[in-house]
């Protein structure tokens, strides 16, 4: 590059190093404060600690590799909370894909957690198969919801990016309280199926 001598390049390298170090320090501080909470969030989403810890690790890596300004530890914490959430959901999604493609009767592979022995893997396989059946049933029930409830689910939950209640209210013309009721009813109907399967 013309006009950029060795001294200037050295300055640029130093700036980048300082920037990365600063980002890494902020992330490290946020992790130290909140790691256990994020692992609990991951467990709530994935259903097991191993996947939850992997999700937190992956989220930290993503945030460290990211670009953009992280002004303080709180911002890093917010960023990481969202990232842990996404990574954990990604793991649930990946797990179900692996289950779908596994041969019948064979234990499905699990990201980041190779089971200790065959028996344990078979148990995991059974759980994943049950999970896949539950997902299929939930999607069937989703199709049977009344149109207004389906719309609430699509706008508030599935749309990328999802709408806030007020935005959805502006878009549909339905009052916020009505959207509340519709989403609650939809979740209630889908949740019933979960309860039926569990009990």
């Amino acid at each position, binding site marked *: 590059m013309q006009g950029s001598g060795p001294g200037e390049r050295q300055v640029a390298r130093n700036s980048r190093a300082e920037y990365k170090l600063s980002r890494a320090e902020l992330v490290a501080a946020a992790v130290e404060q909140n790691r256990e909470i994020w692992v609990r969030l991951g467990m709530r989403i994935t259903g097991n600690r191993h996947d939850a810890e992997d999700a937190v690790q992956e989220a930290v890596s993503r945030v460290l590799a990211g670009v953009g300004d992280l002004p303080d530890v709180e911002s890093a914490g917010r960023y990481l*909370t969202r990232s842990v959430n996404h990574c954990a959901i990604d793991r649930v999604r990946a797990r179900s894909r692996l289950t779908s493609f596994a041969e019948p009767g064979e234990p499905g592979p699990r990201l980041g957690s190779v089971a200790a022995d065959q028996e344990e893997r078979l148990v995991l396989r059974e759980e994943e198969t049950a999970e896949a059946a539950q997902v299929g049933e939930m999607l069937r029930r989703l199709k049977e919801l009344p149109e207004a409830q389906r719309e609430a689910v699509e706008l508030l939950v599935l749309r990328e990016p999802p709408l806030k209640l007020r935005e959805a209210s502006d878009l549909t013309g339905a009052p916020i309280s009505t959207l509340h009721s519709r989403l609650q009813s939809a*979740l209630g109907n889908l949740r019933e199926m979960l309860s039926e399967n569990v009990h």
Partner: protein
Amino acid sequence: MHLSTEDLLDLIHGDTQVEDLDEQLNHMDRCRECADAYAVLVTLQAHREDALEALREAEADPTPNTIPFPTQAPRANRGWASKHLRLAATIAVAALLAVIIWTSPILQRGELVPASDLQAELVDLTTDQFVDTIGRPSSDAVRRAGEEQLLEGARQALLADQPEHVLELLSTVPPAQSDADYFRFYMGVAHYLAGQPEDAVTVLESLGDGSDSAILRQACWYRANALLRLGRTDESLQILDELAAPRLGLGAENFLFVFGSEAEALASEVRELLASTDAPR
């Protein structure tokens, strides 16, 4: 107190503040209802593409709503345990429907509830066979079966977000004694959803303390919302505060179940609005 809809949506989208996360996770450790609701959201998010595809399919090929009515209170109270009585009721439904179809212009336009499986089973059953089997239904059985059919039709229309149809449907038959509360409840909710808050308040107010507890709290929720629309904030806040108070016995078995926290959230939203605008109550 349960997690609000906003809490659950923030959680699933990763927008929860870290400082609130611990408390909400603790709540879900204790509360099966919220944990299950969150599990549903996680499943939907994890299978987002499949869920969107399911919604597209549903839109392209609408099928009749087959969701069961969670509130079983009216049926449980009737004591129709006898098999013969049940059969009598189903026959009576068919008989009443025949009369209504014969006389009602609405039904002749084909706008009412689709025939249920139950009615389809009755098509081949002749009157003689019926009499041989169980005898003729009493007029009371006919009336009650008709009520049940109408209530089910109203419920389906509400679930399908067709409040005007509920009003049309229920206006064809005057409320009967045994299910008057349910008629009024559906009518009141339909008025509210149809943008007629004044009528909603009038009808829902008529549900007294002696009404079925399964609908009373829901009726109060809609009445509070209708009052808000009418600008009667003091009355609305009083109801919302009562709903927000902890109370046992409200669960997912109710139809449009309302969490106490929803009422509390709405009440505080209204108060904040009043404080910020200094609007006259």
